[in-house]
């Protein structure tokens, strides 16, 4: 999405982007967040090289082993190497987080922009639909989807995506409405530009900031929601490693083998923390009011 914004190629845009980056890079916490995120992404991409064991290799001779040089984070009840699972888990968690958010953001943005731009009846129908979606509890939605297509990564993805649609739609709608009446939009309209063109070309780049902020913070939320779903048995299915399900499966061992919950727990916290730090920084950097 960020890419799209820069591809617009307007000189004005570019300079705004650069300025935002300049301000962002001064925010130390945001940079820490960005660094953690970068490490996570690299870990996810090169999981095969980093993980010392396959994530599903079981060793019945070495179940529930405390951390050692052989198993950096110990082994679980099946004798699987927790470090390897945490490493591979970054793939799943980031995948779930990003894809679900992308899906939710895309749909939410399109409808939000349409609602905000056209107003009137269209607006009313879309926003009421969002209210309906919003009114259906996330967990109910997740369970219903999971029962239909079976629990697993896809249903978790869809549930998280669908339930994030209303939030995006609202944010984008509000942002669109403020941009809509700006002069350049009116100018383009008077020049006979068609609506899709105006939305994509003029409105979208200008509402990108709230979307990006909402998205960065939302990824963390969806990772946490996924962990909650795992707790209810609706998350990612075995033997695929995912931090949330590792954490919830390990909860029965928590008191004797605390290392089992510590590593996936810290992994989740770090990721969500990094996303929040970065998202906060981004919001500050994009907020013109805080310029001084």
């Amino acid at each position, binding site marked *: 999405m960020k890419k799209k914004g820069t591809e617009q190629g307007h000189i004005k845009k570019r300079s705004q982007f650069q300025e935002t980056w300049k301000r962002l890079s001064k925010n130390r916490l945001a940079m820490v967040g960005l660094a953690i995120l970068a490490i996570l992404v690299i870990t996810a991409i090169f999981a095969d090289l980093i993980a010392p064991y396959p994530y599903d290799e079981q060793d019945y001779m070495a179940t529930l082993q405390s951390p050692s040089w052989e198993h950096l984070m110990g082994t679980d009840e099946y004798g699987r190497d927790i470090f390897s699972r945490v490493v591979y888990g970054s793939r799943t968690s980031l995948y779930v987080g990003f894809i679900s958010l992308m899906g939710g953001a895309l749909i939410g943005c399109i409808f939000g922009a349409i609602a905000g731009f056209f107003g009137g009846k269209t607006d009313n129908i879309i926003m009421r639909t969002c209210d309906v979606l919003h009114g259906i509890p996330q*967990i109910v939605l997740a369970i219903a989807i999971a029962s239909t297509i079976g629990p697993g990564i896809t249903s978790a993805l869809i549930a998280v995506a669908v339930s994030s649609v209303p939030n995006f739609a609202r944010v984008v709608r509000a942002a669109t409405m403020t941009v809509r009446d700006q002069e350049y939009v009116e100018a383009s309209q008077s020049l006979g530009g068609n609506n899709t063109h105006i939305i994509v070309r003029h409105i979208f780049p200008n509402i990108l900031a709230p979307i990006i902020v909402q998205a960065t913070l939302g990824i963390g939320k969806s990772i*946490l929601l996924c962990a909650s779903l795992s707790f209810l048995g609706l998350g990612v299915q075995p033997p695929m490693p995912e931090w*949330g399900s590792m954490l919830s499966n390990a*909860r029965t061992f928590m008191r004797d083998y605390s290392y089992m919950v510590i590593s996936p727990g810290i992994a989740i916290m770090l990721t969500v*923390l990094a996303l929040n730090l970065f998202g906060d920084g981004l919001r500050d950097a994009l907020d013109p009011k805080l310029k001084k």
Partner: protein
Amino acid sequence: MLRYIAKRIFLMIPVLLGISFVIFLLMYFTPGDPAQMILGDLATKEEVEALREEMGLNDSFFERYFRYMGDLLKGDLGTSYTTKLPVWDEISARLPVTAKVAFFVIVFAVLIGVPIGILSAVRQYTIIDSITRVMALLGITMPSFWFALLLVLLFSVKLGWLPASGLYGPAYYVLPIISISAASVAIITRTARSSMLEVIRQDYIDTARAKGQKERVVLFKHALLNALIPILTVVGIQFAGSLGGAVVNEQVFAIPGIGKLMVDAIKARNYPLVTGSVLVLSLLQSLVNLFIDLLYAFVDPRIRSQYSRSKKKTKALNGAVTAGAGTAAGKGE
């Protein structure tokens, strides 16, 4: 103003209709047979079929939907498949528990979150501020069942100060409230901090200071009042969210709340109970939202005047408010 309320309540009707329809549709397409769930593994095909017929499960989707809506208009939410009790009885046994917990949670979150947020804003860049921000982030980042289990292990097992589960007296509420409110406290703190920061920078605050007013008066009379709108928004979102039932926490603390009821109902394909509880919850959440919107008017005279003016403006305003707070909107679970 009364007209505004009436209009808002009127607007809830299509939304509730939509929700009932979507839920019905979801349940219709979910595999699994309620009749089979009731009769168990050992029932014969004929018995299951007979029960399906009796329950009206063989009728078409629209027949079932309109029958349900017809009953609903008469104030009948139907009968639970599993217990054969009226759905309303089932819900009313659980809803007060959830509502009570949600209420305490939000009160607790406001009492803790707002003062700390303000303090953090006033003492920006001090140690207090840093600690607050870190704690707030921790509250948001912690998976809630993890936190809940840690609390139980510490306060019930290690220290033996508090009961571990159930809701049989004031002491029983402490751990669930702390655990469920962790995220809300964090989000309210952050919102309070950031909106206070924004207000403090405004000129009129300097003016007030320049007029020689006491710092406390400046902060609470001028600054806080103006910072209240985003805080209220977030409080509303959090309250509505926790009304939905913190399923995970309900499980850890054995709280007989509505979240658990809903999850069980879906698992048992107990359609009337699912639809009924979602509808009741949505209605409640809509009322909370309405109440929060009215509070805006109470807090801010500018908004108040807008209620009497065009509808479009109000909605634009609501949208803007939600947009500001949306980014901070918390994890419901």
